């Protein structure tokens, strides 16, 4: 459990694999946020966890008992598609991660 705190990771992917429907042979750098937000939890999170353990509250995928590791700033990504047209996509790649919420 050491040093897996929420931080920025990145990899290079084909534009096609972004799954946004663009047809392009280009590759882009995609950065994303992953890691534990344990150290950002509050009394609320501890209580939520205890209530679920006591089954006072039901476990639910829309119930998060600690802050989530999410981008707080994005980078714009530009590329030319197969018909040599330029595209710029906002909010695609994370620029900075933090435990939010």
């Amino acid at each position, binding site marked *: *459990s050491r040093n897996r705190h929420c931080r920025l990771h990145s990899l290079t992917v084909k534009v096609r694999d972004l799954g946004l429907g663009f047809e392009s042979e280009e590759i882009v750098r995609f950065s994303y946020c992953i890691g534990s937000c344990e150290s950002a939890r509050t*009394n609320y999170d501890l209580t939520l966890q205890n209530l679920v353990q006591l089954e006072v509250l039901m476990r639910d995928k829309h119930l998060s008992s600690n802050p989530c590791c999410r981008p707080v700033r994005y980078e714009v990504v530009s590329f030319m598609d197969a018909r040599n047209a330029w595209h710029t996509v906002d909010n695609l790649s994370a620029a900075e991660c933090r435990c939010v919420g």
Partner: protein
Amino acid sequence: RKEYHENVYIDQPVGLPLLRIHALKDSEEEEVHFGLCPDLVIQRDGIHKNLWFQIQENTGLLFFNRSLEKDLHKMLLGGSWATMSKLVFPVLLSSQPFQGKECQSAHSYNLQHVPHAKVTLSVINATMPSCHSTALGQMCFTDMDLSFQIKENKPPGTFHQLQLFPQQQPCQNISISYKVIADESLPFHYDQNTTTIRVTRSLDRETREKYELLAKCTVRDASKETSKEVPLLVTVLDEDDTPPFLPNGTNTADAVVEFCRKEGTVLATLMVYDADTTPIFPLENSRKKYTGTISTSDAWVKETFRVEHIFNEIYFNPNGSQVRGTQHEYKLVLNKVISITESRSFQLDVIVNDTEYQGPDKSLMLHFNISILPVSIQFPNITYQFTVNRNAANFSQIGKICINNCMRFCGINIMYSLQAPNVSCYAVNIVQSHEDKDGSLYVNDSAVLRKPECKEIQYPVLAVEKQSKKEAHSYLTVILDGKLIRNDEGCLDSCARSKTRSECEECGGLGVLTGRCQWRKGSGTGITPNYSTCSPSIRTCPDGKCDTVESKDPRICPQDCTNTNIIGGHERGLTGIKAGNGICYCFPEENCYCEKDDIKEPLCDDM
């Protein structure tokens, strides 16, 4: 009596006395003059000309001279039929005949400085109670309680008349007789004919300040007889008529200044008593009453010492009765730090003065025999030797360095330092404790500990007293031993991060002594000071104190030092976690958590 209450009915006959104001004299030859002011206050309606009441200047009899019927509307606020309203006015007292100007300064707002009695008349918008509607018992006394105040050291005089005025008791064909039940020896006399009560001699509050008598009234009508007893209380008012005195004759105390030399240190205390009371309210007057000044012309003495004075009420028991008096405490206090080289003995005198007492011996002298001893800066004649494990981490605490009596110092600041060692192995350093008394030795370069050539290191140790620059020298030997152990890469820098025993004991962290963190198994349930946690050294962390080594880096012992958020059931100390629920662990400089031992994986959404 300070206050008089009486009822006045709308149909009450005029021209008769309503009540009698009594007063006592301050001296035999003094005359007594009673006076009324032209205005009075009508409750809810404000100030009005006094058209209804007059007072006999020398007897204090208050007459009701004009019927209220015509002025009812003023009384009862423009016809709003309130059943009752109140008239309030002062009866002034003077030893000179009244010229009328006394009323200017004495209007009802500000009477603290004018002798007076406050009269409150309740105007009752109903006919006077007839004879049969009044219970026999109510014919004896009005509902005013019989409590009186008599100044001590004053001449005798009459202070009350039990018998009510005719219109105050409506029944004619009944007989009312009064008696005062009191011990013969008491200084009061009851005159059966006039039903007046006299104080027969000058009272001394310092002998007795309360008298409880009993007023008994017997009412007989044709068919039956009833009697009623009411307590009659006399309180004796105090005058400053006794000088200060020493409780057991001691006006001298010894004051030794040695290890504690800082400003504010209390060196000695002497008591002075006063049989008089000392009112604390209003504050400014109480402080001025008793003074305590150092009597010296030596500037150094004036600068170096001060006297602090507090007083509280105590009780004296002259022949069995309990009387309030005052105990004055005079503390001799250091007004500034005294150098460790200062050494002298002398007597310091303090003059205590009762400023309000007019008689002889109003002040007395207190003596403090002061001896200021020098303090030597020396190490005990031993050389310091500590063994350190080669796996020790930075900030691990090795031991303490302390010159003679160092733990008894206050106001004496010692700076400890290590000089260059005999071999170039600079592994250890020293830091002052919080009050600069002793020095804490700690590892400040753990890499040096792993060098085979560094086995036994000797440091010259220097201690310097900050103010006088006096020095002391000694030697410290640090012996390194222990087999080196490898640290797992994944280990982090702070023991406090670990949440379980296994995680804790497989890693090191800042401050560990033997290369491994130590798991402190908690005990007790709920929020307890004895929580489970992973520590670099259980002896010093957590111990509720963030010492000077621990405060060098937040990762060493956040359990004692953290000021960040503590999440989960906990109790915060001045710094750190005073008590916690289950296991406490920290992300240094972020948050600390205290959670129950059976921590499951946190819930996570999506995915």
